[in-house]
């Protein structure tokens, strides 16, 4: 037996590759080396990119080498980030990974569910008890300081809550409705609670959320606006008739970027414009950027990846929207990005709306409050952002 083996090996030495197990090993050696050389070569030739359109974020750049950076290990960390961010064919790798995940039956990626009917949904966030209490206390104190101003709270549920039936099979999320009710109970009578959940629940079979983005659609905002009109006291004004126009049919949102799911899914974005040319005109002042515009829309954003930024060009620390509305009504809005497609519906009804995004705002709130005589304050957040927010209390408590 041993002899036969030796003979065989002798015979095979004539060939380029040895036989048996050894043949496999030799091939593995070549393949492994080939893979290393190939990837090194491709990566050496690959040009660094500033940002990833697909993932909607800036990519890490080559870190500068320094003695202190090396001693603290910061350089190494940055370098690893850089290599991973600038890896050649990154987008293709991401695709391969999500494909492998979906073959393996995974329906969740980076906190995003791959739901039914092409719906991607953000997982429901659970509030940090301390942060939530701090925010709610700050809101109550704020109301106490300005007892004469009417304050409204509008907490918009997320898709995973409203369209629970579109979640992947067996998926469970934390109970968002219960968390929302808790906020309502905590705030009590000091705030006028605008129930967006009920309105959206009633329309849950319509396109009130984007398929690939974590925002609600303009239609969702429209329904919520109709439901809120009375409580905001807008029903007494003359109704301004509006109509939806599609401004894009190629939107692929952040949830898709975050998860790698449904990257080929395109959907429309609508904006609501007054039907009549006589409707009040608006002027938008981006306070911090010191930029003025006659429009609430930035159509240049439609050529970029995050088309939702068409509303006001994205998020800003402070926006001042003035209109030719003759009724003297002033509104202050504390908001997250959900408000961006909601504000255009409000704007023609108010003479002035000051919009503050506490995540970016660093100014003095008290001076804003004394400068302007606000009639109403509206807090407008989607539930996930609100429950994860750590900035609101800081802005409200400032004195």
């Amino acid at each position, binding site marked *: 037996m041993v002899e036969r083996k030796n003979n065989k090996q002798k015979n095979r030495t004539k060939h380029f590759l040895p036989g048996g197990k050894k043949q496999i090993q030799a091939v593995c050696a070549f393949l492994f080396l080939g893979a290393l050389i190939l*990837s090194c070569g491709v990566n050496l030739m690959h040009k660094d990119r500033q940002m990833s359109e697909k993932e909607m974020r800036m990519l890490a750049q080559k870190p500068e080498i320094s003695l202190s950076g090396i001693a603290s290990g910061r350089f190494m960390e940055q370098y690893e980030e850089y290599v991973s961010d600038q890896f050649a064919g990154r987008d293709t790798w991401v695709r391969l990974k999500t494909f492998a995940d979906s073959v393996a039956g995974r329906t969740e990626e980076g906190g995003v569910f791959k739901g039914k009917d092409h719906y991607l949904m953000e997982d429901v966030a659970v509030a940090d008890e301390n942060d939530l209490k701090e925010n709610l206390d700050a809101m109550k104190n704020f109301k106490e300081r300005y007892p004469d101003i009417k304050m409204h709270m509008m907490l918009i549920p997320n898709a995973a809550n409203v369209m629970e039936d579109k979640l992947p099979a067996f998926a469970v999320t934390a109970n968002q409705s219960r968390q929302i009710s808790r906020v309502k109970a905590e705030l009590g009578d000091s705030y006028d609670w605008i129930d967006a959940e009920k309105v959206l629940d009633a329309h849950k079979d319509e396109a009130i959320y984007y398929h690939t983005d974590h925002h609600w659609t303009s239609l969702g905002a429209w329904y919520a606006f109709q439901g809120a009109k009375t409580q905001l006291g807008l029903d007494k004004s003359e109704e301004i008739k509006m109509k939806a126009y599609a401004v894009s049919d190629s939107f692929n949102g952040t949830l898709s970027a975050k998860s790698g799911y449904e990257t080929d899914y395109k959907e429309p974005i609508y904006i609501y414009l007054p039907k009549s040319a006589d409707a009040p005109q608006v002027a938008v002042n981006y306070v911090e950027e010191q930029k003025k515009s006659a429009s609430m829309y930035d159509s240049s954003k439609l050529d970029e990846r995050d088309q939702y930024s068409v509303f006001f060009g994205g998020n800003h620390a402070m926006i001042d929207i003035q209109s030719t509305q003759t009724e003297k009504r002033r509104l202050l809005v504390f908001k997250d990005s959900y408000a961006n497609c909601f504000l255009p519906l409000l704007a023609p009804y108010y003479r002035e709306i000051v919009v503050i995004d506490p995540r970016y705002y660093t100014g003095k709130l008290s001076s804003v409050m004394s400068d302007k005589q606000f009639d109403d304050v509206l807090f407008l957040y989607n539930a996930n952002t609100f429950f994860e927010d750590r900035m609101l209390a800081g802005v409200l408590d400032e004195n």
Partner: protein
Amino acid sequence: MLFSSLVFLFTFLPITLLVYYLVPRKVKNVVLLIASLIFYAWGEPVYIFLMLISILFNYFCGMDIALKAGRKSQVHSLIFTIVVNLFILGFFKYYGFIVTNLNAILPFYIPYRKLELPIGISFYTFQTLSYIIDVYRGNVDVQVNLIDFGTYVTMFPQLIAGPIVQYADVERQLRERKESLTKFGYGAWFFVMGLAKKVLLANTIGSIYENIAAMDGMSVVTAWLGCLAYTFQIYFDFSGYSDMAVGLGKMFGFEFMQNFNYPYISKSVTEFWRRWHISLGSWFREYVYIPLGGNRVTVPRHLLNLLIVWFLTGLWHGASWNFVAWGLFYGVILITEKYFTGKILAKLPGAVQTIYTMILVMLGWVLFFSPTLGSALTWIGNMFGQGATGFMDSQALYLIMRNWLFWVAGIIGSTPFMHLLGKRLVFDEERPHTVLAGCLMTGLFVLCVAYLVTESYNPFLYFRF
């Protein structure tokens, strides 16, 4: 640096391989030493000096012990060297633990600052100790070549997570070893399989465990699933890392011992420890258990020996009481199996033996992964219905259904099934399926890279030790 990182795979490894194979034989160890130091410094820029000091210290102590051979003072040198090594290990690893415990019982307060644990210190201290003790025993020749000695201590394939290579096993390999194309290929195969275990199985199953661990309340089934997820994670993580180490070793011409031998098919806990982290077990047997007298002593003394070894094994894994509890838990089980239940167990059907073993091993892992003893007891309580939110809930069902493939892969991967299948279908001596093997390796490698490029979750468990 981690093996499962892009910088290692596509920068460090290619450059090291290239230089290693270009230079003449005499300089190969120099290349390995420098590469290993860079490898270590990448993650521990400051502690590299500690490692250099440790190398120099043990190099000279080794010579000192060898020179004093036959003299009485030799044993003093040995004790001195061991004490210093253990002191360094103790200072960096156990100082905070000891002081916190002292503060709890002493009437006054000792201030302390928690030190960052130098990566791999538990591993390389044990390696140098094996050298020192074997020089004393005359089992190995003293190493006069500082480069070779440094290479032994720092060798990057096994530097941070073992296997704990005893000096006697690589003494010759440090001087003369043979690299070859087929050995390299075999190493590459090993490496890629280890990488796949780590990246595709351990990381994904680990995120299931993390999910469950973060929950507030859990049902009985969820508690077991969480424990099972950790059971798979730690095995694929650690054994995957060991496979990568063995594979890398082969690429540079070394032969390291296998560190795992399908521990989860064991039919007793005693057998489990012959199959789990083999290099640590043999180290303790060689340098603690046998010097204490092993089992050739009276029964009470034998029991004490076992408890000492398992106390130390537990403590080696981390400076915390639950690791001690975990070690003693095994000590008690092993004693029980040895003196009481072993014979009864052997008569039971094989499946029952394995289930018995796995339940104990899983309970052990709860002690191991819990941050405190109290939370470990809560978790174990949940597993048996105490404080659980019912037996089964939709959460548990979701965890099973969403990850069914990973559960199946975990079970299959823990048995020799894939190995035997591969032997039968791919590595057939008569008709090797070279194309299949090539596709399998390349496919797994590409998939691993995809996960590494996009990863958000790539911790490595044994860094803590």
